[in-house]
């Protein structure tokens, strides 16, 4: 009952702010709606029992990536809005129609293949991991991250380093 209420309210917020992101004329408004969308998804993670991921979502997405977008939006000052120039070869209606068809297909697959929908239980149990009894969500994620997924974790750190160097090289003023 409580989860159903939270789900429908959050889903309405998430989809509504998502529509606002792609519909807003001003890019700054888009960025603000993107923050609200990410915060809604973070609350959804809490509902799903992934508290650590919710915090990471707020810190990295809403706090880091979106600020990066905001910097770039502020940095570029456009004399002419990109939407002002119309390309006659663009078929916008066809794009929206195809995307709606994909959504209808995915939902149809879900509806027609789910004869008996499994019911969600409360929290991720520590019994699923071959570990000592871990109680918190953060402990479980940390245990999985530093034992079974240690090598992907290190590779992700290398990826972030390479991305940082690449971003500096690209954004540097060529002289």
């Amino acid at each position, binding site marked *: 009952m409580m989860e159903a209420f939270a789900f429908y309210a959050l889903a309405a917020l*998430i989809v509504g702010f998502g529509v606002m992101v*792609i519909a807003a004329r001003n*890019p700054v408004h888009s960025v603000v709606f993107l923050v609200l969308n990410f915060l809604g998804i973070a609350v959804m993670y809490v509902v799903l029992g*992934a508290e650590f991921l919710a915090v990471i*979502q707020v810190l990295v997405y809403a706090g880091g990536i979106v600020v990066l*977008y905001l910097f*770039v939006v502020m940095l570029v000052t456009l004399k002419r809005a990109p939407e002002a120039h119309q390309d006659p070869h663009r078929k916008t209606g066809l794009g929206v129609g*195809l995307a709606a068809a994909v959504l209808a297909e*995915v939902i149809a697959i879900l509806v027609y293949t789910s004869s008996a929908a499994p019911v969600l239980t409360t929290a991720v149990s520590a019994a699923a991991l071959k570990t000592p009894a871990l109680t918190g969500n953060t402990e479980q994620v940390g245990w999985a991250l530093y034992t079974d997924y240690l090598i992907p974790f290190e590779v992700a750190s290398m990826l972030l380093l390479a991305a940082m160097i690449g971003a500096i090289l690209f954004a540097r003023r060529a002289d």
Partner: protein
Amino acid sequence: MHFVPITPYHYLVLAAALFTLGVIGVMVRRNIIILFMSIELMLNAVNLNFVAFSRLHQHVVGQVFALFVIAVAAAEAAVGLGILLAFYRNKETLNVDDVNLLRG
């Protein structure tokens, strides 16, 4: 008021709707910054799926994978916005239809 219990399919349909919003944004908008934001929407839809399945299977690996997706999204945003700034410096526009040269 009576609610049906929330199943994983509810979360999957929500994620599919969010992903479709991202696809529409990529196809309809011409501002490259909005295109990048639409890609972030799609990545978040994928993360929502991972967490829903993590809950369904009572296993934490879905959340670990969602963390990796967030790391890749951060890398993508940094490099993509760097390319965007270089492009803006060359062409003085953000229209994606004008991105048609391989050299500056």
